[in-house]
């Protein structure tokens, strides 16, 4: 028995970890459609290993430390410049790829990767508030949902520990700007958060089921996640806070020390195909940036209010920024103050 275990183990250890035809993808959790991976594997005969992370910070810490073994990572727009500056990404020139023509021109000359020399769009979405409208009938298009909660929701609110999103939203609600160096504004935002905290149930990546079960009745949440919850419990609705809310895009990039560069390139080209991009949207509930993909999207998705920012809210949308290090430091200290 022991000998058997040992033999198995030795065989496993001896196996080359980098057999031909593999691809290691590092992406946020519940963000990669299994059918997309399966299709890619079958099309190219490549064996895909998916590893998931929970935040940009976690991913960056692991990648920066080196020796991670990943080929592909999916950073948010706000952190792409940091990746590039640190030399963590391969200049893979996706703009030269066959399917690049499908990319919506509006998403090509972006601030974080002008002309798309490093990254390919994955999906874009917003961070807003999600509320069970059976429990609370009032206006949900406001950050007051979590910063000055109505009686019905007190103690039933979750806040996703997406530090920058939450502090940005608090800053907008007190009349400030994201990544501001104005200490009075930062102080006001912190005070507001600290005062609201007693009314929150958790600061967590709460599982969808906690809302579907109505353990929790409201959350600062991402639009696609809110849509997936609404599909299971129609009481929930997604609000676009009028004080301001973050708009973001996550991007697929090849890592500088990738070992399966060719397969990674195949993947980048693969997801710029409209049908494949639609698979991503159908699964995640977020919009992609590939023209022609709408034809393959489900009717539910196309009609989803979480997918389209209403005109009335458009002015309040702010694209997520990269804060300078000294501001990021203040954010962290506010966050520690909040979560202590």
């Amino acid at each position, binding site marked *: 028995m022991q000998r058997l275990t040992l033999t198995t183990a030795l065989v496993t250890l001896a196996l080359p970890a980098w057999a031909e035809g593999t691809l290691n993808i590092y992406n946020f959790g519940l963000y990669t459609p299994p059918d997309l991976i399966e299709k890619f594997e079958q099309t190219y005969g490549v064996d895909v290993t998916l590893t998931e992370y929970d*935040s940009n*910070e*976690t991913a*960056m*810490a692991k990648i*920066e*430390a080196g020796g991670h073994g990943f080929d592909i990572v999916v950073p948010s727009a706000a952190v792409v410049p*940091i990746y590039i500056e*640190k030399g963590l990404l391969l200049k893979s020139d996706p703009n030269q790829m066959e399917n690049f023509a499908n990319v919506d021109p509006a998403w090509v000359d972006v601030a974080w990767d002008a002309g798309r020399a490093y990254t390919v769009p994955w999906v874009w979405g917003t961070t807003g508030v999600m509320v069970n409208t059976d429990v609370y009938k009032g206006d949900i298009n406001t950050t007051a949902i979590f910063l000055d909660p109505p009686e019905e929701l007190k*103690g039933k609110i*979750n806040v996703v*520990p997406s*530090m920058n999103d939450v502090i940005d939203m608090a800053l907008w609600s007190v009349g400030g700007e994201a990544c501001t160096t104005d*200490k*009075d504004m*930062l*102080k006001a935002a*912190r005070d507001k958060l600290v005062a609201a*905290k007693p009314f*929150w*149930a*958790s*600061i*967590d990546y*709460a599982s969808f089921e*906690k809302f579907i*079960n*109505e*353990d929790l009745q409201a959350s600062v949440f991402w639009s696609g996640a809110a849509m997936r919850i609404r599909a299971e419990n129609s009481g929930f609705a997604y609000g676009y806070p009028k004080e301001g809310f973050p708009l973001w895009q996550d991007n697929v990039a090849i890592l500088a020390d990738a070992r399966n560069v060719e397969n990674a390139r195949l993947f980048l080209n693969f997801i710029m195909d409209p049908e494949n991009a639609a698979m991503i949207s159908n699964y995640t509930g977020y919009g992609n940036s590939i023209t022609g993909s709408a034809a393959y999207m489900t009717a539910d998705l196309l009609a989803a209010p979480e997918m389209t920012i209403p005109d009335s809210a458009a002015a309040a949308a702010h694209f997520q920024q990269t804060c300078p*290090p000294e501001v*990021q*430091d*203040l954010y*962290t*200290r*506010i*966050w*520690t*103050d909040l*979560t*202590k």
Partner: protein
Amino acid sequence: MDAETLAARADARRRWGLAAPAVAIITLFSILPLGVVLVYSFLAPGDFGNVRWQLSFEGWFSVLFERDIFDDTISLSDAHLTILGRSVALSLATTLITLVLGLPTAWFIATRPLHQRAFWLFLITIPFWTNLLVRTIAVQEMIRSEGVFNRLFLWLGLIDAPIQMMFTNFAVLVGMAYVFLPLMVLPVYSAIEKFDFRLAEAGYDLYASRAYCLRRVILPMVRPGIIAGSILVFVPSLGAYVTPRIMGGGKSMMLGNLIEMQFGQGRNWPLGAALSLTLTALVLAALIWYTRLTSGGRRNG
């Protein structure tokens, strides 16, 4: 040089040889990395994580003190002290709860007739062998809003609305006590089991009082087990990460979570390193205290 010294040296060499593999593995994969943490605690944080190779005491300073975010006045760090205090208090409480439940349980098992003992031990070994996460999931199901307790209380009419128990210190404590309970029972049991009950009988025959017998004969024998159990519970409690994360929901942070945060979202590795060493020092202090406690009673045996 006499033969005895030579023999002693040969004995020492043989013993060092035997211990060498274990010592080498631990040195390379536990002590050396800790040295790296020590070095990192004296460096400056990099802009987006990692470190800059520049001597700095800011990491250590920030463990207990903070410069006000807004006007730079120095004060004790309320946030860190709260988390520190909570970690120690919850760990002590966990140890106490597991001891109160675990000691009688171990005693109960050890005093069963031999053929029954296996069965009871089997019952303790199963949760002990069951994954920590699985057990955290199980205990979460008990106390969440739509969980077993709330439904039961609602059904019994004791409450009108579910009580929010998750994401509180209470939830973290319940989770840790539940998860670490078997870690207390087993070492205590093995101490009691080793105990030669004829000794106590002898004590009884010599007309020693029950209390005297308990204190002078049984306790010294069981004490190593209690201490081992307490160490096995207290140490992982203090550094706990997974259970407080699930049960505390990011609102009831413990030191482990604070440290992890510095290496992730916080992007302050030197502070994380200094906090790590602080945590390690706390554990060490507890262990030294335990050792002191034990060496008093054991020598006269």
